[in-house]
């Protein structure tokens, strides 16, 4: 009897399931669709197009033509590309460790229950959401070589030959880095605060019982426990460093000379400024590959440490 009833039941159920699945697919897509259409047209397709374009010769005046690796060859032979790459790396090497160290320091200072601590947190976070143009304009004046407050301060502590900052090709990059560290550290401080608050107190108590000093506890409890946060912070910081664009455009516009020209700026100049769509996409691809490599590398290091 069971053998007779079973066969008809199973297909019915699977038909029902299939119907349910189809219904779910339909419902799911109606939710996603309004966003997806915009995302597809203005993010996903341009991302894919950027890959294809980097192998094409296409300017505002000519039709697109497949040229293989010609754009890349031209790029590698271009002096400006190497200058921009070097500047971008220099920016990242300054921006990433400084922001990370200061953000962690601030988070440790602010990770306590004191009256009014919220005010300090908010004040330190605020630069991050201040408009970039205002930030760049103010810092440019603070960095003013002759009578700017920063050089006046340096003079007052006995530094006779204060740097020329944004007017000097050696000091423009440090000036940009200082500004960006000031602006970004509040954001990463918030991430570190969340990380610090997730460390179970028992770990510290156990370390104390074992007679660990404050410094030992910092190295052996705080730092290892913060590893996932640090991983995230490093990746975010590195990615944002390689993308740096608007701060430089507003603060120095790549100058003096080419001393602060970065990759993103080069993409903008070649692609939108001069209409060399193919060539600029080749530079974009390099930018993307660098960001990808750094992320994957960090991910691998993180995994190895966990093992």
């Amino acid at each position: 009897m069971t053998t007779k009833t079973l066969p008809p039941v199973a297909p019915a159920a699977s038909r029902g399931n299939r119907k349910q699945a189809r219904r779910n697919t339909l419902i799911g897509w109606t939710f996603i669709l309004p966003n997806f259409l915009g995302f597809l047209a203005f993010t996903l397709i341009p991302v894919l197009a950027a890959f294809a374009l980097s192998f094409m010769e296409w300017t505002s005046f000519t039709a697109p033509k497949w040229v293989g690796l010609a754009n890349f060859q031209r790029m590698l032979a271009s002096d400006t590309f190497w200058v921009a790459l070097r500047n971008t790396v220099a920016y990242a090497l300054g921006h990433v460790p400084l922001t990370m160290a200061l953000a962690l320091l601030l988070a440790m200072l602010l990770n306590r229950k004191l009256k009014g601590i919220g005010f300090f947190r908010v004040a330190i976070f605020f630069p991050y959401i201040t408009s970039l143009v205002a930030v760049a304009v103010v810092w440019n004046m603070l960095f003013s070589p002759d009578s700017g407050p920063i050089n006046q301060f340096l003079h007052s502590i006995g530094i006779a030959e204060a740097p020329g900052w944004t007017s000097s090709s050696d000091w423009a990059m440090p000036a940009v880095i200082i500004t960006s560290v000031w602006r970004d550290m509040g954001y990463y401080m918030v991430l570190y605060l969340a990380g610090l608050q997730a460390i179970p107190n028992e770990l510290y108590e156990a370390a104390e019982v074992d007679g660990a000093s404050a410094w030992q506890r910092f190295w052996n409890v705080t730092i290892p426990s913060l590893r996932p946060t640090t991983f995230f912070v490093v990746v975010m910081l590195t990615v944002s460093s390689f993308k740096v664009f608007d701060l430089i455009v507003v603060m120095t516009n790549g100058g003096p000379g080419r001393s602060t020209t970065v990759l993103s700026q080069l993409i903008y100049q070649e692609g939108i400024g001069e209409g060399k769509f193919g060539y600029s996409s080749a530079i974009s691809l390099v930018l993307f590959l660098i960001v990808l490599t750094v992320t994957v590398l960090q991910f691998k290091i993180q995994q190895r440490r966990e093992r």
Partner: protein
Amino acid sequence: MTNMAEDLKAEAPFAKAGLAPAEGRRRTPGTGTRGSGQRKRSTRERKARTTDTVIYAVLAVLVVALMVPFIWMVSSSLKENNQVLTVPIQWIPSEFVWSNYTDIWTRIPMMGYLQNSLYLAVIITCLQVLTGSLAAYGFSKVRFPGRDVLFLAYIGTIAVPWQAYMVPQYIMMQNLGLTNSFNALILLQAFGAFGVFLMRQYYMTIPDELCEAARIDGLSEYGIWARVILPLSKPALASLALLTFVNTWNDYMGPFIYLTSNRLWTVQLGLRSFVGQFDAEYAMIMTGSVISVIPILVIFLLGQRYFIQGIATSGMKG
């Protein structure tokens, strides 16, 4: 009782930060008699109070140092032009020049810039929050084949620097005839993957049982989204709305690439162009900067909780 609990709570962060070694050592087992214990408690209280004072002092100095650019900005905005870059620095203007704040509206079309920024920020924020929360519901509460692959595509594009695909975007907008219009910026910024990601992270924390119960009560999926999930996700919606608004308000590159005619300019573009044209009008430039920051300050003070929550949510589970 409550006091003790608070004491414990207050201690925890010190221990966490690893900056209060003395307290910890005193808590180790086997420390002397009852009498010495009492004495120690009072020294400990005194010590804690001193530590507090030191911490406050350190923090106050630090915050003032970090706020110098803002102090300088506000102070300079109330000065005569030739008083801005003086030796020595005048932190408080010798004479407050309030007229900077009335003159700027006629010097540059500031009101128009503010309106443009506001228009863009409001439209983009509304669209982003609406489409983002809808899509997040689809990605977290409805099961269908291909969903996770699609979500991966979303995440994947977050990792691609925007600069890497701005040129194809520009070509597309040019062909659609949308350059030099607000529509280009709205289309480019209202459907961001980040909003979907942020909302989904939050929706994942809402138990599926709630939706299940609502389904049994006969609510459609759209009903569940509107009547169960949306009311529960107010903090996340606020975070996303505030972050989007501030990002759009502060955006420089988008308007810089797409908006060429002056009447469409946002505050950021207007300010930048003013600096470019009259780079010696220090005081007026600072006045403009202050005006461009005030809306952000107001919004931030009203919703700072949501900013910080939003960052912590999107950050930690990434």
